[in-house]
């Protein structure tokens, strides 16, 4: 009985960790879906958002005002990226665009340190991280809060994309860029909206991850957690990012506990990639990604 309880505890912990991975992955999906760009700078944006927020709070700016101000900064960053980096590179190969975002991530990290310094900061969102017990299983309050926040974010995006003009334009562009252009949609405006949305996701994810890890340079490394999620769930599916995150979170924790001892431990980082690679071989578009069919 105790072993089963422990298994459940590992599973629940893994699923809740997976929600945090999904949060980062959603930022990737939003941009990839509309522009075909794998935005490697998503981690740097997350760092920039968290660092901006915490620096404002430490300078005496009230909590909610700091959130609003950071959101404005992230929107400005998103629009600037679209204008300065992506628009001049339109019609370039996916590899060129990927390399541009790779370079962009270094620039954002550098500017973040230049503006806000290199010190490590604590971030308190006012949510206690003390566990409570359900049937002998410990559950983290903070993780539940993070899961609820992620759920609210996804629900908010779903409403936005279904019931607003910009959302509908986004879906049209995601379905077929050329058809969207043909009916008069302005691609650049949609892209700017998408980068703004990605900036919002970066802010939410940055605050939650920042409260977990502290706000520091290594925050940008959380992108590495999102990559197997994307490989598993598909690069262009929000649902895939969520299910992929949950699966990767659960699998890596269970693998570390039950398979890790056979290899001397420390396997969860690469175990997630083994699973993701296996999925990639069996289903290259991921669980929920669109299959690419080309006429030749």
């Amino acid at each position, binding site marked *: 009985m105790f072993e089963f309880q*422990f298994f459940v505890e590992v599973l629940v912990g893994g699923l809740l960790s997976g929600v945090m991975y999904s949060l980062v992955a959603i930022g990737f999906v939003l941009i990839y879906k509309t522009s075909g760009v794998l935005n490697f700078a998503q981690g740097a944006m997350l760092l920039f958002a968290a660092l901006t927020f915490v620096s404002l709070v430490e300078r005496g700016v009230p909590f909610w005002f700091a959130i609003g101000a950071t959101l404005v900064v992230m929107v400005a960053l998103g629009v600037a990226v679209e204008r300065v980096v992506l628009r001049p590179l339109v019609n370039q190969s996916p590899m060129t665009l990927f390399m541009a975002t790779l370079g962009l991530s270094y620039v954002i990290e550098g500017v973040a340190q230049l503006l806000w310094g290199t010190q490590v900061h604590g971030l308190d969102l006012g949510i206690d991280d003390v566990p409570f017990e359900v049937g002998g299983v410990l559950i983290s309050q903070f993780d539940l809060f993070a899961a609820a926040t992620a759920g609210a974010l996804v629900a908010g995006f779903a409403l936005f994309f279904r019931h607003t003009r910009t959302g509908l334009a986004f879906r049209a562009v995601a379905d077929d860029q050329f058809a969207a252009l043909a009916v008069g949609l302005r691609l650049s405006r949609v892209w700017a909206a998408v980068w703004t949305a990605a900036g919002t996701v970066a802010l939410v994810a940055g605050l939650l991850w920042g409260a977990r890890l502290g706000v520091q340079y290594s925050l940008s490394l959380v992108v590495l957690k999102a990559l197997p999620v994307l490989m598993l769930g598909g690069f262009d599916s929000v649902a895939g990012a969520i299910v992929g995150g949950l699966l990767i979170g659960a699998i890596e924790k269970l693998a570390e506990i039950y398979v890790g001892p056979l290899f001397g431990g420390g396997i969860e980082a690469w175990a997630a990639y083994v699973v993701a690679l296996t999925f990639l071989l069996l289903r290259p578009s991921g669980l929920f990604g669109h299959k690419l069919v080309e006429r030749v």
Partner: protein
Amino acid sequence: MLISKSLRTAALAAAIAFGAALPVHADEQFFPLQSYRVGPYAAGGTGFFGGFIDYLNLINIRDGGVNGVKLTWEEGETQYEVERGLEVYERLKNHPGVAAWNPLSVGIAYAMIDRITKDKVPLITINHGRTDSTDGRVFPYVFPLLLNPYSETSGIVNYIASREGGADKLKGKKIVVLYHGSPYGKETIPIYKLLADKYGFSLEQIEVPHPGNEQQSQWLSIRRAKPDYVVLRGWGVMNPVALKTAQKVGFPIDHIIGNVWSNSEEDVIPAGEAAKGYVAITTQASGAEFPVLQEIIKTVYGAGKGNLDDKKRIGSVYHNLGIVNGILNVEAIRIAQQKFGKRTLTGDEVRWGFEHLQLDPTRVQALGAKGLFHSINVTWDNHEGDGRVTFQQWDGTKWKAVSDWIAPDWAFLRPIIEKSAAAYAAEHNIKVRTSDDTALSQ
């Protein structure tokens, strides 16, 4: 006659003007600094190199240098990356009067050992580096001052024993070591096994993959194992995440003992309330109440030459480590000057100074560092110098000492270190020094 006088005057004026244009080369001792002020480890780098430079500045401003020899330095940014560290080495190694290298990076230090040995300049790896470089018979130019990883391990076990009421009380206890998944993290695996055998405690060692930003499964394993203590051998983001996850699984924070790279403000502040009560080992106390710190504040920061931008960091763990490192470097030069003369020394002469760096508590007090660190006793074959350790507890805003100065079990460790050094010597074809070989260039 008039022409002659005019010529002489013109010649004199030209000579004075020419002389004034030339730089005056007083005796100077140079420190090349492979610092890291940007990148993921910048918080530690700015503190350590800030403290080091603050102390060098104090010596220059207050004393006019070491016996008139001015201390100079130049920084090269490494971002903690090995290849950049080596670039800085190659760029600065030919600067006149290089005293010693102080990279504060395991990776850069490892990559420099062959180079500094060939160039005959000391490499200082305070509190870190290869454990077997303690053996000066095999590593004549490497100095893991105050503490090597094995001494640290022994110090932590001795501290746990003192909390339990004696070494005999360790029998039957359970200790989990949570270590960073890197060569640094893995270095102490064998010594913990030996100490577990010696004292009869049961041991489990659990790896956290780099960078350590996710530790749910490791802490659930710890919860299942129900250990009496967890030793945290972390680095960077792994440390606050460990403390927060420990809270998440309900493990008592004051039974987590951090190692020397898990003991700074940067490790606990991001963990917030979860870190309150956490205990960690250190070789130097925190705080700015020590006379040497007060002098730095008055003399260096008072003159607007302080190196830290944020004055609240004066007296922090990394800043004080940098100051202690400065004291040890400066005193090695001072000791070497007594033998070789009050002038710019060669690296080999400074190495001799380090091999005679013996600062007892009386001398430490005279340097204004009583309570900041205990003492050091470096010899030609013991390059660590028998540093003592103390333990500090985080109260939510600052570290407080919770132990006396504790001595690691050097007698137990020495044969293990010598065995490892002998294997290194055999592998690299190194002639092992004897006490007859301690003169220069040996």
